[in-house]
């Protein structure tokens, strides 16, 4: 038998063994799922969060982009937002006043992601050019009147789908890419500090679509992929993921850490959001609704409220469900409220103090949602 034929046989056998082990693992995990979050919360007598008609209102509409909004990010402390759009620009907004402080024309219009640095002095973006570009907001404009790129992080062999600065570090960020890898960058040198996954390391086997860094332990981050899995990484160990999380049945478009740093949420093309525990690997809850004839809308983006009680999820059909994470019930649909978006919700994020949610849409606008009701007390 030729060497090549032998290798193909080994490949087939190994694939069979791998699938068998995955099934065995799934069965063993099922035995440990004695409850989910909703089951536990019901047993404790929890009642769902209820919203009155004016409790969560759209209090700002940020208009200025002339193309679909693909990504947004808040500054950690002050109320500024950076947004990225198909019109080839980043806009930096003062979210309280709705004013635009910067409108940055990008070298490549096909932007997919943007992020604010922890200090709010720089923004990063990436897209189909496979490059992550950094802009210093305090730099003077160049002779064309544009803010110049202060650093280009090159090295990915596929599009940059997601990026996030390491919390409290102006000089490091993590990108996720269509080349199936995540990369930790040193912005000062422009070099890759670590590559997670890829051709010769264990990692995702499909495009990586989203990344989220643990706010409680910035050495840990999770990445989600078209291979339907989410992987937990330790930035000190790039050779393999700490854990791989299975469960979704479609591309996992978005992943976010839960506020306590020990869990994370996901959103997928299979129409569900899920909550996983990083220490045990258990899937703690699924958030899904039955759908009719129009098919299952995909989840594009998620965010948790500051307490973790609310899970905001944007969908391709324009819905923006507010899930009670404890009871796994939809308590509000921002897509059905007055002044809601006219198109797909593509991105969303919570302000640093948790008092406002920003949603971005293919209708070219961003909207800020905040509590507009009264907090009544005992009488």
């Amino acid at each position: 038998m030729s060497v090549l034929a032998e290798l193909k046989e080994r490949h087939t056998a190994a694939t069979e063994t791998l699938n068998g082990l995955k099934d065995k693992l799934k069965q063993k995990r099922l035995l440990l799922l004695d409850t989910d979050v909703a089951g536990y919360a019901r047993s404790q007598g929890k009642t769902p969060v209820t919203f009155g008609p004016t409790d969560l209102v759209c209090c700002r509409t940020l208009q200025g982009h002339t193309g679909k909004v693909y990504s947004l990010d808040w500054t950690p402390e002050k109320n500024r937002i950076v947004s990225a759009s198909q019109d080839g620009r980043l806009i930096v907004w003062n979210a309280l006043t709705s004013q635009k402080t910067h409108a940055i024309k990008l070298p490549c219009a096909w932007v997919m992601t943007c992020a604010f640095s922890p200090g709010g002095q720089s923004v990063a973006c990436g897209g189909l050019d496979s490059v992550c570009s950094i802009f210093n907001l305090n730099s003077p404009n160049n002779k064309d009147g544009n803010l110049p790129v202060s650093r280009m992080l090159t090295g990915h062999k596929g599009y940059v789908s997601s990026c996030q600065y390491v919390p409290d570090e102006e000089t490091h960020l993590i990108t996720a890419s269509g080349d199936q890898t995540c990369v930790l960058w040193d912005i000062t040198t422009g070099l890759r500090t670590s590559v997670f996954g890829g051709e010769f390391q264990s990692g995702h086997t499909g495009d990586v679509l989203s990344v989220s860094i643990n706010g409680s332990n910035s050495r840990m981050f999770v990445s989600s992929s078209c291979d339907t899995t989410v992987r937990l990484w330790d930035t000190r160990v790039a050779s393999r993921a700490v854990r791989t999380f299975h469960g979704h049945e479609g591309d996992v478009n978005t992943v976010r850490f839960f506020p306590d740093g020990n869990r994370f949420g996901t959103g997928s093309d299979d129409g569900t959001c899920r909550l996983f525990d990083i220490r045990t690997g258990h899937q703690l809850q699924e958030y899904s609704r039955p759908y009719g004839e129009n098919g299952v809308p995909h989840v594009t983006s998620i965010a948790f409220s500051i307490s973790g009680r609310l899970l905001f999820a944007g969908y391709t059909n324009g819905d923006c469900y507010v899930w009670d994470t404890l009871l796994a019930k939809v308590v509000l649909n921002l897509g059905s409220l007055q002044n809601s978006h006219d198109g797909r919700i593509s991105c969303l994020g919570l302000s640093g103090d948790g008092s406002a949610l920003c949603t971005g849409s293919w209708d070219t606008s961003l909207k800020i949602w905040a509590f507009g009701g009264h907090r009544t007390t005992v009488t």
Partner: protein
Amino acid sequence: MTGLKGNGSPPSLPLPRPKSPPEYADLYRKRREMAKVQMLEREIGFLEEELKSIAGLQPASRPCKELAEFVTCNADPLIPVRTKKIRRSCCLWKWLCGASCFNVSSICCCCCQSHLERTRSHDCTTCSCSNPCKGCPTPKCNHCFCCSSRCSNKPTCSWTCCIPKCPSCLTCPSTRCVCNVKCLEGNMCSCCTKSCCNSCLFCY
């Protein structure tokens, strides 16, 4: 003429038989296949490790309990609070806060909800907290510290406390006014008489 047959047609030539291009050795195919197999075998090793470690794992109820405790112990500015009974605090710091500042209304604004529920005489007008006061019926303006009904500040206030006003006219009566930027193009805001624009990309 030589070469012609009796009927005048030229002798038939053999049909062309183009040769296939020479096969170049795919020097990397074997290496790629080997890498794929090694990757799979590595993944098998990881799964076998995970199967062994699963025996010592806690059931899902434990992390569910931790999550529920975390959620109920943390306040959330986006969640309406409508409760008829005093919640028992599940966190020690809330109990301590309530015990220590029961009669001090100025401190209570930043403290636990359960304490606020006990201090029924909490006076909004004397509260000087810069954060939205949880005991007050309406959120306070971060900038002017007044309740929303009296706030007439310019748009530096918190989200729903003060309606942002057009910097150009400052007296825009419409509560729906979202004018914010002076537009060089001179577009008119529908709710204001002064020129302002909220959709021009090039405005500052």
